[in-house]
């Protein structure tokens, strides 16, 4: 089979979606950035592609690259066709993501302090104070280290015109970076041909960057800070990620029961007694973090953590209370926040958003529920989201009631035809919708954006829901290097320089002589054998 067979009917199917295709320009001509990938795929038969896909899936299962769903470990499906982002497009994304993180950081500092953003009339006070994630428990102090958004994941999508837009911000506990790291390893083995000539920017430095940012934001006066990753435990859906990051950073992965707070300092229980902890990379929701401040029935956290943070005895990353910044209603104000705090125009635009607590917008939306996407403002993972065109009449009626009952709790957006990338499905490639979550690490001085990020793909034809819990998979995301100065992924070098053996260790005086003698003996033995034969 040739490429034309595997891609048979592709352009027709892509045409039906009405979306921007990342790989092919209209007329099924591969875009320039995809040249190498298209070349590699052209050489492959169906049997070959399937064998590679199977082997990639098997490797993931063996390595335990899984997520937990309903108590079951499932491998996160990785598609063999990567998502490629050309250097100039990445440049824009990188600047846009960093800009957004800086604005949200400033917003959070302000919200938990003087709230000048409210007194200057940029956003209504009520909007902040009614957010479910505005935590009064952390009001009025600057966290140790001075950073709140250490790690963020800013979800972007491409609309039908090919323009990138921000879909949502994740500044609480963004997950998925482990798959970025694992996908690259798997692809290097699954489709090595495509790595050939292209200069792809590496992702492996993420754990190093993360660790250095976490250490840099340790409480002042700590010389050699101890960093830990705090996980809710083995049943959390992202447990694999927690182990991978802790492992790659070489730090302990702790559960709440391993920690103890004493005199506003945090310690972990070790075989050698209690050991001080300075920085906690928190992978647990605020609500479960500290039974003294939040849910008192939580067994996942550790009592006293928030007080310790307030006293400056420990850095918690990301800071407690960040949820107020990724509230989806606040999202609709982020362009204004960027102008207000940074004095810049947003590099990446938002998706048009209706605020349902505004009467006019609400009336307009309630008449058109069947053509819009309606989302709860504090949801994540696609929970509670309703896609109008796919919903039944009953679902829409129920939604209408819920919106009227709690207008602050919902936003509405037009249905975006997310861009597509060819994805293996059965015996051919079909267009499937994707989004992109670039990850940013903020160490207080600089916001570093991991080149690429997690591309999630809706594996079902026509589906716009990319979440792993709802049948989504992922793709390796390649950012092409624009200039030769940027570090890139390389295949192992072909030519190997032979290193001369130098011996500095004392050896027996006649050792060398004997060795050559023995070799000669072997050679003559071999000759004898040949002669006998």
């Amino acid at each position, binding site marked *: 089979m040739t490429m034309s067979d595997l891609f048979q009917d592709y352009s027709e199917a892509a045409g039906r979606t009405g979306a921007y295709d990342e790989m092919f320009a209209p007329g099924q001509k591969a875009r320039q950035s995809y040249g190498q990938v298209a070349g590699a795929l052209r050489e492959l038969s169906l049997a070959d592609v399937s064998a590679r896909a199977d082997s990639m899936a098997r490797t993931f*299962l*063996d*390595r*335990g690259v899984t997520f937990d769903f309903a108590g079951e470990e499932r491998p996160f499906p990785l598609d063999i066709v990567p998502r490629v982002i050309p250097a100039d497009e990445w440049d824009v994304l990188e600047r846009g993501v960093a800009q957004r993180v800086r604005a949200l950081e400033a917003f959070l500092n302000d919200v938990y302090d003087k709230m000048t953003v409210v007194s200057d009339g940029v956003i209504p006070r009520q909007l902040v104070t009614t957010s479910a994630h505005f935590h009064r428990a952390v009001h009025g102090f600057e966290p140790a280290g001075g950073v709140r958004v250490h790690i963020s994941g800013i979800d972007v999508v491409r609309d039908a015109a090919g323009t990138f837009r921000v879909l949502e911000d994740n500044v609480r506990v963004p997950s998925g970076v482990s798959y970025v790291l694992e996908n690259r390893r798997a692809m290097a083995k699954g489709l090595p041909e495509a790595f050939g000539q292209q200069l792809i920017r590496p992702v492996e430095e993420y754990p190093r960057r993360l660790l250095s940012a976490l250490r840099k934001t340790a409480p002042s006066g700590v010389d050699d800070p101890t960093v830990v*990753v705090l996980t809710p435990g*083995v049943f959390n859906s992202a447990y694999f990620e927690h*182990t*991978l990051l*802790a*492992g790659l950073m070489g730090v*302990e*992965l*702790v*559960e*709440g*029961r*391993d920690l*103890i*707070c*004493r*005199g*506003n300092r945090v310690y*972990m*229980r*070790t*075989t*050698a007694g209690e050991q001080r902890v300075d920085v906690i990379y928190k992978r647990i929701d605020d609500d479960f973090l500290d*039974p*003294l401040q939040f849910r008192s029935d939580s*067994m996942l956290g*550790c*009592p*006293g953590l928030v*007080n310790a943070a307030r006293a400056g005895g420990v850095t918690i990353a990301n800071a407690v209370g960040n949820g107020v910044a990724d509230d989806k209603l606040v999202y609709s104000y982020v362009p204004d926040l960027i102008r207000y705090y940074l004095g810049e125009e947003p590099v990446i635009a938002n998706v048009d958003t209706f605020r349902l607590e505004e009467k006019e917008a609400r009336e307009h939306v309630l008449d058109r529920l069947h053509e819009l996407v309606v989302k709860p403002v504090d949801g994540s993972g696609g929970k509670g989201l309703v896609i109008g065109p796919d919903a039944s009449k009953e679902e829409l009626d129920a939604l209408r009631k819920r919106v009227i009952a709690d207008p602050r709790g919902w936003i509405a957006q037009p249905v975006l035809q997310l861009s597509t990338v060819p994805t293996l499905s059965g015996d051919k490639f079909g267009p499937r919708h994707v989004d992109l979550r670039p990850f940013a690490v903020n160490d207080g001085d600089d916001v570093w954006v991991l080149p690429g990020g997690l591309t999630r793909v809706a594996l079902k034809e026509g589906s716009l829901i990319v979440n792993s819990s709802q049948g989504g998979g992922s793709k390796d995301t390649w950012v092409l290097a624009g200039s030769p100065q940027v570090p890139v992924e390389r295949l192992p070098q072909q030519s190997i320089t032979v290193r001369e053996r130098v011996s500095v260790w004392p050896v027996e005086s006649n050792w060398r002589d004997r060795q050559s003698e023995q070799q000669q003996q072997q050679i003559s033995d071999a000759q004898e054998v040949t002669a006998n034969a």
Partner: protein
Amino acid sequence: MLSRIAESLFWIGRYVERADGTARILDVHLERLNHLPTEERRSVARELLGVMGARPQSEDFGLEELLHALAYDKHSATSIAGSLGAARENARRARETVSSGLWESLNTTYYGLNQHRKDVVGTYRFCHWVLERTAMVSGLADTTVSHDDSWLFLALGRSLERADMTARMLSTRDVLSAGMSWVNMLRCAGAYESFLRTRRAAFGDQHAAEFLLLDRLFPRSIVYALSDADECLAKLDPSAQRVGFINDARRIVGQARTFLEFHRTDDLMSELPEHMERVQKAVAQASDAISRKYFNQADELAWVGEVS
């Protein structure tokens, strides 16, 4: 290191060794069991299960049930599948501490558990496969994990379980009315060749038992395994006193080993059951003492106040 992780590593060591020992015992006894008349087979199966520390679930307990209980039952910590599943689950919880090689070998072993025929013929192959996998796991643990505290806990679990398993192996001798041949017993422990090379002329029950019990150089002998455990304990707690021990585990392990090592008898065979029982008891007590000293998480999740 974290107490919780140390506990996981200790149990990885124990479970992997348990799977290994159980596979060895099952492999050898299956051969014998097959030769017996049905009635006797049933009672022997029952007793064998008892030696391995479990009770039959139902009245109707035959060969098939024995295979299930010792090899394939995923919910029992006595069976091979159960032990390997538990080892893998512990590794999953300590994954950031162990090497990826060790984790992957346990993980692929776990996924391989289902790929075997569960009848008598399949079980021979299964046991063989288990021995290969456990050897691989042990090898990777020894060569890819730094021999620091984490490895010491793993090795400690492994050597205690090994002493226990060899004791059970020796106890199975009485289970078969015809008597288990010592050749098979030695084969079971993988000790046959070593034994022959050491004790050329003196072949017999007494010598074989001595070898598996007291040999100072054969790694699966009880004395060797116990002194291994003692060494790990000594390294884990370098605060040795000039007099006595504050570490219960060391005292228990040391007493058991020295009693065997310095014991003098003319009739080892008749004392064997008592020795075996004591060794197993010592292992259980040592394990408890280690838990108390190193893994104790008994302090509840509690607020201890601003100052204390």
